[in-house]
């Protein structure tokens, strides 16, 4: 997808004016955190599992070369192939070449954030191969020509009526007067239409939630079963995964799987978890004849070397989106690229460059909820702050001039006290006893959607001095 992450502020402004989006987000940000809270409450060992998962992933990242090589050897031993790709362009070409070799006309896809990251759909379509999204939400936004607004529920920004209208427009061969009022009816139609696509697809393309070094297996989780149809019907299966997805053993996979669904959808486990190892075996009545794993770096090895290694622990559960007050206000599209919410604010500048995502590290209230609920205990606020520090050092931070002015006074305490005391008295005077400002010159951006509480006429420092004098 085409990134608009550089214009977060404008995107967010538009999103805030969208009342339908606000309604969808409100219902969503009530539902998911509550489901997570309940399901985590049923598992006394949840925090112990988090600690283990952090230790496990830290170990893997320090030994990533070892586990990747072992994973590759095991895939090959199982009859599969591994394709290493440095960047998005290499991954696109690799996938296209596999599809061409298979003589593919259509490719059935299950949801893959890495697939969005490398914009594989656009590339296949430009080369005469039709990509078909099969996850219900992804399919809906694909036929609308949109991009996902959430990594788990991509069509969260749409109402049932929006979807029904889209189906009427796009499924032109079906009877005009059919009823699509109920979500159930929309589902039946999607199932029937997509069933044909599964059966016709020459190649199946999935992501992978985990790569298992011990066995050369990929693990894929879904609730719909679409990835499983993709992994059993087409004659070629391509799994696209970034390099940090590897774990050592099946036991380690179990530990992470206990955290994944609980954190994301608030389920103990998703309906389907599949471990796929190589192509169809001798005598097997179904399964693909070819099994390819496309291993993508695209910035991960640089993150491993730098200040953002901890972000590579991310398992893409979406919990930080579900709990984020900024995401709840503006939704996923405002972030302007594949990854949204707090994890997107850290990841996108890593993958696209800070200059193309300059507002994202600032799209935070620093409430700390994301770090609190992250199953992999990624210090997301600290990592966002790291990007802000970098912006400040580069002189590209918003408000850097104001901060420099503040720093001038802060280094001169006597002057600081006099200046702030004056400022506070002036503001109190201007507020005229109303206790708040509806509008403030030079701060219209801040006071547009909210009031600024007016100072009481005294600074904290002067109150503190008086208080300590009174009670020595």
């Amino acid at each position, binding site marked *: 997808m085409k990134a608009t992450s550089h214009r977060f502020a404008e995107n967010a402004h538009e999103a805030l004016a969208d009342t339908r989006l606000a309604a*969808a987000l409100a*219902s*969503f940000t009530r539902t998911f955190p509550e489901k997570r809270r309940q399901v985590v409450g*049923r*598992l006394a*060992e949840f925090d*112990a*599992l988090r600690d283990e998962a952090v230790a496990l992933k*830290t170990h893997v990242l*320090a*030994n*990533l*070369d070892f586990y990747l090589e*072992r994973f590759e050897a095991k895939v090959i031993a199982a009859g599969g192939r591994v394709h*290493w790709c*440095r960047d998005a362009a*290499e991954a696109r070409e690799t996938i296209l070449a596999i599809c061409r070799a298979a003589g593919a006309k259509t490719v059935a896809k299950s949801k893959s954030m890495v697939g969005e990251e490398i914009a594989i759909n656009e590339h296949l379509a430009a080369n005469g191969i039709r990509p078909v999204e*099969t996850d219900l*939400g992804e399919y809906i936004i694909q036929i609308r020509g949109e991009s996902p607004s959430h990594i788990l529920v*991509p069509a969260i920004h749409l109402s*049932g009526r929006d979807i029904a209208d889209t189906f009427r427009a796009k499924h032109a061969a079906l009877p005009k007067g059919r009823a699509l009022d109920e*979500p*159930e009816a*929309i*589902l039946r139609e*999607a*199932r029937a239409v*997509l*069933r044909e696509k599964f059966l016709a697809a020459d190649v199946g393309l999935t992501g992978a939630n985990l790569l298992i070094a*011990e*066995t050369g297996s990929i693990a894929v989780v879904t609730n*719909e*079963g*679409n990835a*499983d*149809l993709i*992994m*059993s019907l087409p004659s070629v299966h391509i799994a696209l995964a970034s390099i940090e997805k590897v774990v*050592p*053993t099946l*036991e380690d996979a*179990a530990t992470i799987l206990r955290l994944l669904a609980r954190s994301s959808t608030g389920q*103990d*486990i*998703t309906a*389907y*978890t*599949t*471990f*796929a190892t190589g192509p*169809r*075996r001798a*005598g*097997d009545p*179904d*399964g693909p004849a070819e099994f390819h794993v496309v*291993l993508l770096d695209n910035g991960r*090895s640089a993150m*491993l*070397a730098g200040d953002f290694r901890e972000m590579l622990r991310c398992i893409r559960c979406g919990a930080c989106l579900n709990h984020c007050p900024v995401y709840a206000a503006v939704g996923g599209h405002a972030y302007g690229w594949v990854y949204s919410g707090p994890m997107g604010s850290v990841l996108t500048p890593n993958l696209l460059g800070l200059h193309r995502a300059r507002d994202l590290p600032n799209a935070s209230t620093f409430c700390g909820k994301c770090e609190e609920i992250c199953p992999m205990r990624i210090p997301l606020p600290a990592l966002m702050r790291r990007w802000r520090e970098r912006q400040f050092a580069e002189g590209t931070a918003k408000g850097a001039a104001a901060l420099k002015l503040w720093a001038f006074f802060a280094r001169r305490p006597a002057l600081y006290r006099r200046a702030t005391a004056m400022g506070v008295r002036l503001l109190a005077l201007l507020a005229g006893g109303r206790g708040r400002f509806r509008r403030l010159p030079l701060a219209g951006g801040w006071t547009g959607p909210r009031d600024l509480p007016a100072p009481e006429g005294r600074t904290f420092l002067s109150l503190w001095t008086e208080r300590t004098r009174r009670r020595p």
Partner: protein
Amino acid sequence: MSAARDDILAAVRRAVVGDPAADHAACDRRLAHPSANTVPARGRGTAAELRARFIAEAEAAAATVARVADRAAVPAVAAAWLAANGLPTKAGVAPALETLPWSRTPELDVGFGRAEADTPVSVSAAVAGIAETGTLVLLSGPRTPTTLNYLPDVHLVVLDARRIVGAYEDAWAMLRAAGGAAGFMPRAVNWITGPSRSADIELVLLLGVHGPRRLHILLVDGEAA
């Protein structure tokens, strides 16, 4: 190998060089002797407790469970359940279950082999049930086609109650113990917990998106036939 491979591995090695946690001998040991991390208490218990938990968790995930006295009773119980629910009687059955007395249920139109696009009902065989989340474990193989698990609208799964284990790790141990020289992982290990579902439309939970709308577990209590 490819230049991309060399470049990526070199970049990774540069990134971790001197890291005190980099220890390939420890990695080797970890892979050679896989061991369990924390196993939740809900994955432990007596056989009776695990059986009860498996049923409760599977039902919580919207599966239905029927107790069957012995394997020979499976066709009759399956036929009765399909009839009681007004469901189709044409069923694709895993060849692994071919030895069951299907001739006693002429009302069922059974075929053995993989599922086709128009197979409305399937009957497949699970190798294990995992109590902690009510999860079925099915393996691909010549006599256990994977398509039976996903294509039909109605999925019946036969599970020997003695194959109910507590936790995911127990299922891996079972698989490793049974594994042959060519490796113990079949092409596909399918964990299935309840029927297919989605909340993509207005967060309303709907069943049967791409996979089965109904998952019915036939839990065989008695001795193996």
